[in-house]
């Protein structure tokens, strides 16, 4: 029995709890829109600072809180785009390549990495909730399948199947992206 929308009478307005409850969803939302990690971090901080000063969150259920936080995050992202347009930009071709002896640290590699990360966030968000949970527990929490099964009270075989399905779906999305990129380059 998974939890559907649960507009609880619970009123979790304390910032610590609010942060714990929604940080992953809000960060995921921000990461969809902002590839740059430092910018995403700034926006995340601003969203919860806004929440800290927002008495209107009192009495909202979790779903309403998350909707409010996402709306604020969307506004902050738009603000960031506007600011970014006013920032002085340095063309990549003008950068001295030998400044970046490690290829992974080069601006181009960083940009590509950020784009791939944003893409992965998007594909992860498209997975069914239970698949997202299993992938997170396995890769983020580093839990073995058996422990995930115990936590989620499912069979270990179900966890293996869920994990395989999720990874195959992500992998298919990756391959699709690669095919599309290949077609663009042609």
């Amino acid at each position, binding site marked *: 029995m998974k939890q559907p929308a649960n507009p609880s009478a619970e009123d979790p307005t304390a910032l610590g709890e609010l942060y714990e409850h929604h940080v992953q969803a809000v960060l995921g939302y921000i990461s969809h829109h902002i590839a740059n990690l430092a910018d995403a971090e700034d926006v995340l901080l601003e969203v919860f600072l806004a929440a800290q000063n927002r008495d209107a969150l009192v009495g909202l259920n979790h779903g309403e809180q998350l909707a409010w936080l996402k709306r604020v995050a969307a506004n902050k992202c738009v603000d960031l785009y506007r600011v970014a347009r006013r920032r002085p930009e340095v063309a990549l071709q003008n950068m001295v390549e030998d400044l970046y002896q490690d290829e992974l640290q080069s601006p181009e590699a960083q940009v590509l990495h950020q784009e791939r990360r944003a893409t992965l966030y998007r594909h992860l968000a498209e997975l069914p909730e239970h698949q997202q949970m299993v992938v997170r527990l396995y890769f983020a929490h580093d839990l073995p399948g058996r422990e995930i099964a115990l936590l989620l*009270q499912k069979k270990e075989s179900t966890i293996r199947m869920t994990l395989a399905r999720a990874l195959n779906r992500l992998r298919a999305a990756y391959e699709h992206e690669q095919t599309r990129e290949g077609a663009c380059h042609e």
Partner: protein
Amino acid sequence: MSKHDDQFQPETIYQQIEQLSSPPEAAASTSGALLRDLRDLYKQEEEITERVRTKLGQISDPQVTLSPRNTTSSKNIQTGRKTMHNDEHFQPLMSSRPGSNTPQRPKFPRSLLVAATILLALGLVGSMSFVLMHTHLPNQAAVTPTSGPMTKPETPAIPTGVKPTPTTTAGQNACTSVAAHPVTLTSPPGANSPALYYIVGKGGQQTLPSQTQLVRYDLTTGQKSTLYTSPEGESLINAVLSPDKHWLLLSSIFSRGQGIVLQLLRTDGQQLQTLYTDCSASATISEQSDRWSLDGSRIAFVSSDADLQILTLTTGQFQTYLSSTNLTEVYWVNNHQLTIQQNNSNDNVLYLLDTNKGTGQKLSDATALMHISTTCARLSISSDGSRLFNGSCNGRVPQNNCQSGDALSGQSVITSAPSGNTSHTTTIYSNTQDTVVAYAPIGTSQMLLYVMNPPAVTNAGPASHDGLWIINDDGTGLRQLTTGTGLKCWFQDGPYPDYQIASDGQHYALLQVNATSSGPLNQSLVVGKLSGGSNTMIANYEYGRENVLVVVGIGEK
């Protein structure tokens, strides 16, 4: 493409991940890149959330310097991060919110998952640090009637030759292995009275349920009593009525993830006795695999390592009859044969196992009866074991109000076949529009169906058909018992079905989640008579907190 860059296979998923994470594979293959990116993403996410957490704490109260999370291991990083609201360092932040007089709130349901993660991690550490013998105390807090008879649990005898190696977890209830031993089952004294038995508990959606209780509702007097309360550290996950309806087989697991306990409790709440306790770390019970044989003399269950094990109550013999993988759902066909399901990634296969062929069998020794669709299908059996029932529908359709869940859609078909020869199938029910989301055989001649039609789906049946129906096994006599306002979502992967039905041939019990136009969802348990008339709601919970987890069935006390 790398040789390992094939589809991820459930059977070898962990090895594939390990191989693809090694440097050459990680660089060369799409799958390797995916795994590397996943790890990077979560690592970066963790770093960001930790930094923002620290900044929020400092901004909220500059006098307080929040110490970073324990970073000794990846598990600690993650669990520490998610339990911030329990961290005393974070309290000033919460209490110093301008204009806030809000007291600290109870934990979110999601924090249960986090708590379980921590407990699991602690349990693993504890099990390595402490290898002590403790007495399992299943009876200590076992029976706390709110009304009805007081119970006096019996202390089980602990025979020699205990099977598994005992382990223990520090702090809470500990586990000591108890080998199977002979038991004698007696009927409860006094006049019999029909009663509904069900399990309630907190959580249970994404965590093990906690504070689980077995409740009896007397269908004659309307009196409700709690027969059994799980000791701290244990979760009662299932209960099964004996064929004579006088005993309950209770299956519990230690909530720190180690050990299972099988107990018997008479339906009057007396004579609690521990049948068997396995404290090994891998011990758990597969879904719906704990079953009484038709004569009540044996109990089958599938343990976590996918062994079908059978306890013979009169002798205390505990034997492994079948070893395989992905085994689940057991039904006794007669006193020596049982069906067992093997769930694979693409389909489920039903096997017939003959215990007369002896212990230590392999799946190849069993007879493959039929393939079962993985969508909508649910197997059930008549009370005498003679007929198997199989339900199917047209698959899942997305529903906007279900978050990540879907609805099921018709055509729905329920078939019946002799247990030993499933090729001779008879269709009991077939409807091109209505969607049967749950069904339950009544004895040997009737069946209850719960219809829940998805809205806004072409050719779906009308909402007026939603509710509980009864039908004869020959397909005649279909009539509606209740109307439904249920949630149109179906979470097939959940540990406890949203809709559960039980009947004793006279009464029915129905667990459903009610959708309302506004306000929280709620779960209700209603009872009524098959002959008709209004039903009575005997339990009602806000969905997602404390809930009815399992409708055990209607027995006698």
